[in-house]
């Protein structure tokens, strides 16, 4: 098993997530893309932990998951309340906070 393959998969997933954040307007999809990026990074961490032969990367991956879970809770709540007040889940519609 070659770790390079895992890293390439991770980079691919991260790229898909980044492009998703940039081009999709639906807040839910943007959110899912962010989760994808986070997990792509987790995959890299685990791979590196395996390559180094210690548990540091695995532990960080667990931390990332905790943070991601918290973020989902807060983020989804925000998206819900925006949808309730504006009847839209488009991130481009919520653009009032500007110059």
């Amino acid at each position, binding site marked *: 098993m070659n770790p390079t393959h895992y890293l390439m998969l991770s980079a691919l997933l991260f790229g898909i997530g980044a492009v998703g*954040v*940039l081009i999709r*307007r639906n807040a839910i999809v*943007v959110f899912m893309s962010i989760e994808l990026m986070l997990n792509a990074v987790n995959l890299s961490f685990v791979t590196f932990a395996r390559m180094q032969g210690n548990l540091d990367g695995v532990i960080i991956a667990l931390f990332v998951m905790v943070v991601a879970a918290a973020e989902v809770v807060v983020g989804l709540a925000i998206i819900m309340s925006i949808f309730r007040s504006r009847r839209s889940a488009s*991130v*481009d519609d*919520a*653009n009032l906070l*500007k*110059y």
Partner: protein
Amino acid sequence: MTQALQLAAHLGAAGAGSAVPPEATGVTAIAWLVLVLPAAGALVLMLGGRRLNRIAPILGCLTVVAAFVIAVSIFFATIGAGAGDRVHEIPIWSWMPVQALQVEFGMRIDPLSLTFMLLITGVGSLIHIYSIGYMEHDERRQRFFAYMNLFVAAMLLLVMGNSFVTVYAGWEGVGLASYLLIGFWSHKRVAATAAKKSFVMNRVGDFGFVIGIFIMFAEMGTTSFSGVFANIGTVAQQHPGAVTAMTLFLLLGACAKSGQVPLQAWLPDAMEGPTPVSALIHAATMVTAGVYLITRSADIYNLSGTGQLVVSIVGAVTILVGAIGGCGKDDIKRVLAYSTVSQIGYMFLAAGLGTGVYGLAILHLLTHGFFKAGMFLASGSIMHGMNDQVDMRHYGALAKRMPLTFITMACGYLAIIGFPYLSGFFSKDPIIEAAFAAGGTKGWLLGGAATLGAAITAFYMTRLMIMTFFGEARWKNLTSPDGRAYHPHESGLVMTVPMLILSIGSLGAGAFLASGERLVGWLTPSVGEFAEPHPTLLSAGVITWGNVVLMLVGAGIAYVYFGMRPVPVTQPATRNPVVMLSRAGVGGDAINETLVARPGLWLARTSSYLDARGVDGVVDGVGTAILGLSSWWKGWQNGYVRSYALSMLSGTLLVAVALMVVNFS
């Protein structure tokens, strides 16, 4: 050793001892009360506000009269003492204890300061009492008396201080009081302007005075009289230039305060103030502060021939400028003001003639204080009875309507023109003799100017008397500018009594003070031994009686011009160069305009241009650039989350690429 002895002898001859004078005892020790009483009166009246209007005149007079009583008792305690025991110091507190700069706040009670204290509080009391009547109908009496008391206090500080810095404090104080009182009727535009003019012109002189004090401190490290006079001899040996600089800068200060050429133009304008102010401040006391300063600094002036020469030239020129200025004016107070300028010129002339004749300057100062204050009060009394009209062309034949005023004015008139055996004769004649005694061309020029000035004085004062008190009653067919007819009447007792007391002074003060060298002998500890001038060019008798003849000629010409012909009620056009010169104020304003106002204006305009185009350009440029940059930059904050994400991604990639380039190259 010989040199030191000569120096010591010189200082001894110059008067003030080199050692610090003894501390005062007995009644002299409470001399500070003389200063504190009017100051307290000023404070109470200023803080008390209008509710004090009723008691203000009484309070104002009482403080000054009380100060006068104390001054008189100090005088009697001192007069019996020998020449060496007449100088006392009263240390009060350490004012500026800053390493090398040690300024003590203290008082010096010696014959010179006592003489001034008596003049200020004595004439001040009379004028305060007169003001009770003169300001009777004014809404702001409390403020008037507060300012008058402030003036008296500041003037006393000026003459009682024992260091140049203390004198300077009083100097500024009288300047402030003068400003406040000239502009007392500030609703009149001319009064407000005149006040500002006097203040600004006095600043020019204050600047000179301050520089003089700085030089003293730089050269001797002290500013107290005893310290400066003890060390000035050493400075004169090491840096004679510094002594001359001191004398010239002090003279600049004295010129501004005393209305001497080239800073005389403010004094005639100062007549916009109430008449008691003109009498007290702009005739009897404040304007003589310059003479006081020079006489007080006798030990400095004695060591600089140049300084003394400049002082006497300023005096001689001012005698003529003031006298000519008085010839063509129709405003009675302005004529008197120009006459003041001219008479102070005599005092400067005497002070500049140096060792031995300082006493004559003070003698003329005292007699002038009496007769000029009397004449100003008389002119105030005329204005009081003539709807505040000051134009003499509206007067005429007032002698019968205002007999007491006429007597006062006549006494002052006879005194000022030097009528034999009246005050002015005894004080002016020795000055003219002393001027001739200077010898050579200098003697001829100074003496000639003084003699000519005396003749012109007789001319313009006779003109004033004839236009005011004799001739036709021109006021019968005229009305004052506010449309009221004139009903000339004599003023009340509260005004006439002080006038009459002053007129006794105009008649007798000269004889009293001059006989047996009473005054000049008394002043010896302050200004040095009096030396009778011995004119070599002409004999004293020729000068004295020649002056009397010239005085009669001047008066006769005035009688021919104004007594034998009717006086026009409006100012006639003239081609007479002297009258034109006089109406133009003898170029006083032109000098100001050319020397100070125009260059100042030019400087201000250039600075303003540089400020608007240079400094403001840079400041505004920076502001505009930042504004433009930020309005372009704020466009990035567009509210679209995805564009923020893109910039974050780009930034991250940039950092990553940079790291890679650094790590792998």
